[in-house]
Structure formats: structure tokens, C-alpha cells
């Protein structure tokens, strides 16, 4: 096993020019530490935006960026992800179901190092949301894009990406070992993605409904896989009017409807992964005992 697996990062976008620019910057070699430009590629799959992103938009970042347009754009990102997985050339592939998530600076290197610890690693990063509270409280707190822009400016982002932790709220409320419903970004070896058959395109609900939790749960249920949670890195959701992150009512409705669809589809209730798995400390580059 090697710690230098070539990596592909599959990022789905839909009408998020403001957010995607930051996300791709955060994945570029000038921001990511411990990764050379030749180590990885970024595959952006646009899911039907009126003005799809072009590779030239990111040329100044010095990253290997490819842009695709999903051949079957829909309200669910599942098909777009699968087209990105098919196009990805890396042996290790990380999927961003939501291109509005900024990465911390050591995320890619940590995921690559963690993957090398187990032949069937399921490497999960922890989701955070920018702002003092989870963004579905935005209607009550007045949080919006302008507040967020000022917040990012207040930490001088992107100079020190680790300061994102100072202005964000974790989605893993029970702590890093707590029940985990999903991960963005999720890293699996190409062989494991193939075994999983990617994302299940029957999740046709807006935003894919529970397709991201479903993928995470299925990955962990594959035989002899090892969940590895990354500590000290994360992704940070930018406010962009997403279905489940803009209002409490919207979040509840998305989850409630999604859980019903999941039950009908899988024949069992949606439940988070409770196994804490291994914890990989990105700073120490070692497992946490």
C-alpha cells in the first residue's frame, strides 16, 4: 500500500458560482498542504447550471481541473456523481456531493494517508457549517451570504484555512465519535466505489434526498471495510439556499420525506453509523488511541 495514491476529487455543482470558486480554491495545490499538483485532479460535474463552470475559470489555481456537464442533469446529484466517478482517473476518489463545501488545508493529504492504513478503508471527513449556528437557523439569526462573506474576511480566509474551525459549527453534535449520518467528502478507493456501484440513482428526490447517508451506510456495510474518521480536518458548508440547510422547516421536511423514501427503498429505517471506527489525527498523522 502506498500513501501516494493518485487522487481524484469529484465535486458536484449546481448554480453555485460564488461557493464553487471558494471550494475549488480550497482544493487547489496552493491551499492544500502535503499534496503536489501532480498528486491529484479535480473533476467538477455540473448538474444543469444556467452558466456551467469551465476549467478556465480555475486556471489561475495551478490545479488539474476538469469540468464535465452531467448528461442527465436532474434535481438529484446522484447521476452527476456517478458520471464523475466514471471519469475519475485516481485510485482514491473523494466525492463532494455539494460543491459548496470548503475544505481545510490538510484534508486531501490526511485522507490519502488514512486510506493507506487499511486495504478497504472508508475515510470519512466531518461536516461543518460556516456560522455560529447550523445554517437552518438562518431565518432566525439573520445569517446570509453577506454575513458569511464578512465572517470569512474576519479570519483572513484563505490565508490560514484552519481558522475556519473558529467560525463554524460542527454537524456532528455528539462529538467525533458520535453517530454519523453522512460525510462530505467521502473517500474510497476506486475498487470500493466500483463494488458499491457508486451512488444509487433511484434516489431521485430533490438534492438526492438521503442518497449521501445511503452511500455512507452502504460503504460501511461492505464486508471487511474499516471506517476511519478524520480529526483536525473537515469541510465547511457555505450558505447557498440548499434544501436542507436554509431553514429549520426545510431541514425537517427534507429529512422526514427522505427518511420515508429511504424506508420504502431499503426496507429498514435510516439510521446513522454508530461505530466510531478509527480516528485519524491529521496533525499527528497517526491513529488516535
Amino acid at each position, binding site marked *: 500500500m502506498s500513501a501516494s495514491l493518485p487522487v481524484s476529487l469529484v465535486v458536484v455543482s449546481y448554480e453555485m458560482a460564488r461557493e464553487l470558486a471558494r471550494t475549488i480554491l480550497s482544493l487547489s495545490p496552493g491551499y492544500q498542504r502535503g499534496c503536489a499538483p501532480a498528486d491529484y485532479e479535480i473533476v467538477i460535474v455540473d448538474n444543469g447550471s444556467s452558466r456551467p463552470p469551465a476549467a478556465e475559470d480555475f486556471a489561475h489555481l495551478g490545479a488539474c481541473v476538469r469540468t464535465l456537464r452531467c448528461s442527465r442533469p436532474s434535481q438529484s446529484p446522484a447521476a452527476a456523481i456517478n458520471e464523475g466517478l466514471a471519469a475519475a482517473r485516481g485510485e482514491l476518489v473523494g466525492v463532494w456531493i455539494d460543491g459548496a463545501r470548503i475544505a481545510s488545508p490538510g484534508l486531501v493529504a490526511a485522507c490519502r494517508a488514512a486510506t493507506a492504513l487499511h486495504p478497504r478503508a472508508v475515510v470519512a471527513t466531518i461536516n461543518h457549517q460556516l456560522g455560529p449556528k447550523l445554517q437552518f437557523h438562518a431565518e432566525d439569526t439573520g445569517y446570509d451570504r453577506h454575513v458569511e462573506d464578512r465572517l470569512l474576511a474576519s479570519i483572513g480566509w484563505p490565508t490560514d484555512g484552519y481558522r475556519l474551525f473558529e467560525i463554524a459549527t460542527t454537524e456532528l453534535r455528539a462529538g467525533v465519535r458520535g453517530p454519523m449520518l453522512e460525510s462530505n467528502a467521502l473517500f474510497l478507493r476506486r475498487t470500493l466505489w466500483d463494488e458499491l456501484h457508486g451512488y444509487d440513482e433511484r434516489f431521485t428526490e430533490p438534492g438526492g434526498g438521503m442518497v449521501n447517508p445511503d452511500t455512507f451506510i452502504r460503504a460501511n456495510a461492505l464486508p471487511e471495510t474499516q471506517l476511519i474518521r478524520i480529526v483536525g480536518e473537515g469541510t465547511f458548508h457555505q450558505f447557498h439556499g440548499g434544501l436542507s440547510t436554509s431553514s429549520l422547516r426545510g431541514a425537517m421536511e427534507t*429529512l*422526514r420525506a427522505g427518511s*420515508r423514501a429511504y*424506508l420504502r427503498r431499503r426496507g429498514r*429505517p*435510516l439510521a*446513522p453509523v454508530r461505530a466510531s471506527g478509527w480516528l485519524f489525527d491529521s496533525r499527528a498523522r497517526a491513529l488516535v488511541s
Partner: protein
Amino acid sequence: MTRLRIAESGELREWMIEYITSVLDLPVESLATSATFDTCGIDSVEAVVMAGVMEEHFGVEIEPMLFFESPSIDAFVAAHGGPPENG
């Protein structure tokens, strides 16, 4: 506010106990029905999921907020269970 009757109290209680112990992988006897969902290990996200699953089972639309207003099995059954319906 109209009180929502979801099911007969015994049936509702039994369903909730089975659901929660199944999700948490706990023996039935270890679950205290007076304990809050949060204390049991059912966080707010899972409470909303439970609302969806309960809707599928009982065929009644259930506002997830009901779980926050009545945050234990005992409280929820007292609020939303009822006597058996006359045949």
C-alpha cells in the same frame, strides 16, 4: 391546537420501544420510557427520521416538532396515544 391521535396508546408505546431499541441496538428491557429521547441516544436528527418512519407505519402525518414538545416515550404516548377505537 388540535391534539393529534396517532394510534392506540399500547400500540404506539410498543412501536416506539421497538423502533428505538432496534435503532440503538439495545435490549428492550434496558430502555427507560420516561427518559428523554436525547438521553436515550436519539438526537434531533434521528427524532425527525422517526417521524417519517412513524408516518409510514401509522399512515398519519406527523410534525417532527411533536417529538420536541413531548420528548420521551411516556410523554409522547400520553399526548398522542388514545383508547382503542370502537369497532
